[in-house]
């Protein structure tokens, strides 16, 4: 099956508009599965270009406290992989925002990769990023996902050797997710100094769009990244807003935050 091309098209649109794509991460199911589609639409109104829908997992080794706690809340609210796909369908009925499923391997493995790939595509998902799958272990998932026209996004890290960066670029489609620093997800006051050189190394290996995440939470981060990357991923700052405000205010707060990040009108 052909890729939906939603991700590629969105990066191309942002490029011609001369700005980085804003990739917003949201843990699906926090505070409840019913609320997630509305939160996604709020993020889109605020200026999100691409949406990463996080599948909650009991043991999120790559995440800092904010997303760990969001995962816990989502699981307590009864969020399963099937529920996340339902959420995706609900979003897709109302929006054309590119959707990336962001997950640890085990929940998807348990669902069954062939079934997952088919159901994800049918639910309007455009790509899948597996946090804890190295390219060495990715053969089977990637062939299933690609067979159903889903993009596969892999992480490039500051520690990655030249050989590994080549593999990551080769296995990725849609975009490459550039991890800005060694560490877990979470907000930081400044961007890591080594992220620009990492992007430069990747540019020499691939034409695919580069989106930088981990520690990106402010407008000045997004602006700075725009000089050398094609997109910025914001996650923990969003989940902190979801957790930190009265239920009725979350949409408005998210919309305002995204507008601020992207330089639009709040």
């Amino acid at each position, binding site marked *: 099956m052909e890729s939906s091309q939603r991700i590629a098209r969105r990066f191309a649109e942002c490029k011609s508009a001369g700005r980085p794509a804003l990739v917003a991460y949201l843990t699906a199911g926090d505070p409840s599965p019913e609320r997630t589609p509305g939160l996604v639409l709020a993020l889109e109104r605020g200026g999100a270009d691409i949406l990463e829908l996080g599948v909650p997992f009991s*043991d999120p080794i790559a995440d800092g406290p904010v997303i760990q706690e969001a995962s816990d809340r989502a699981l307590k609210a009864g969020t399963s992989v099937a529920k996340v796909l339902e959420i995706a369908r609900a979003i897709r009925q109302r929006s054309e925002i590119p959707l990336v499923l962001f997950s640890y391997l*085990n929940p998807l*493995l348990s*669902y069954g990769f062939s079934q997952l790939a088919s159901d994800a595509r049918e639910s309007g998902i455009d790509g899948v990023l597996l*946090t804890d799958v190295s390219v060495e*272990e990715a053969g089977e998932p990637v062939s299933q996902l690609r067979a159903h026209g889903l993009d596969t996004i892999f992480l490039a890290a500051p*520690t*990655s050797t030249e050989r590994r960066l080549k593999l990551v670029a080769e296995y990725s489609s849609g975009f490459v997710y550039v991890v800005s620093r060694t560490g877990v997800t979470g907000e930081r006051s400044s961007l890591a100094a080594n992220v620009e050189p990492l992007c430069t190394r990747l540019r020499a290996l691939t034409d695919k769009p580069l989106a930088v995440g981990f520690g990106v939470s402010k407008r000045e981060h997004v602006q700075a990244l725009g000089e050398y990357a094609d997109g910025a991923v914001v996650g923990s700052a969003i989940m902190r807003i979801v957790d930190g405000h009265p239920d009725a205010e979350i949409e408005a707060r998210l919309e305002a935050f995204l507008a601020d990040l992207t330089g639009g009108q709040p």
Partner: protein
Amino acid sequence: MSSPRTPDAGGHFGPYGGRYVPETLMAPLEELERAYYEARQDPAFQAELVDLLANYAGRPTPLYEAKRLSEQLGGARIFIKREDLLHTGAHKINNCLGQILLARRMGKRRIIAETGAGQHGVATATVCALFGLDCTVYMGDEDMRRQRLNVFRMRLLGAKVVAVHSGSKTLKDAVSEAMRDWVTNVDSTHYLLGSALGAHPYPMMVRDFHRCTGDEARRQMLERIGRLPDTIFACVGGGSNAIGIFTAFLDDAEVKLVGIEAGGRGAKLGQHAARLSGGRPGVLQGAYSYLLQDGDGQVSLTHSISAGLDYALIGPEHAYLHDQGRAEYLSARDDEALAAATRLARTEGIIPALESAHAVAEAIRQAPDAKGKVFLVNLSGRGDKDTDIYRENLPELDSPEG
């Protein structure tokens, strides 16, 4: 049967094992693997390790024939490999000495580790003190409460013990927190993982550092009675002591290998840690193996009276040995382990760790019907650390009147 002794280049034992970690950890794992292969070939490294194992840790450990216990049971002759007599009280020190030499060789100045019951934490704190390296141990808040004595021992040895408040506040969460620390501080830090778990090369490397147990026991059995045991019993949490004793006997097809998992309070999910009977393959914390999980692929909570067996994933080489039929995996419940510990204490004057008591329980169960057979039990640790749990569970011994 193909020998699983060496995993493939990607660290797979059959389909199990591998490397399921975020990309940031991949290059450090490759570096660790390279350093380990070099060290393994280096006679100077091996000589230093052998010297420490002998003169610091106390190897070889005795092979003891439990004559009173055997006589009472009226069947098999039971031999006990006394890993409980090692420095720090359990087999864990074998692996810690190996990895600390490797860390020093790699120029790492900071060591982190996870611990459940605290035995691996104490062994790690011990080798860090010995080599003057900075030591941080992650331990679930709930485990810190249950194992206060070991928390104190670690601190006495100069380690920093960090309480983990996430998830179930036990071993699994301590591993996650140690991995988060490692991914943040990879340049300066070696993660001294304590069992035959995690991403390659850990399951292979930890096994290799523990295989001295089986090599010694095999030689000792031949010297003592001129033959190999018929059955070997070892408890399996991650599975490091079991793989340590099994490895030397893998090619001896006539020797039965039995791993004993924690049967906990019973067969209901959440009440035990019997991964091979109650789990299905999945990925947790770096490796693919049998995993206790719910229908949505979320990792289940586990229960065992022994913190060291209380983990949702079994080491990948055990999953392979199970599928190949080379080893058999059974379980013993909390009450069976307690009864076995009491019996061993009263008949042989040996108080075992609650983990090791699971292996003793299965040997006791099988012995009466095994006349003429020879059993070998790996007594991986001593019971001092479990005194509080023994007291809680044997209140009749703890009243002022006695």
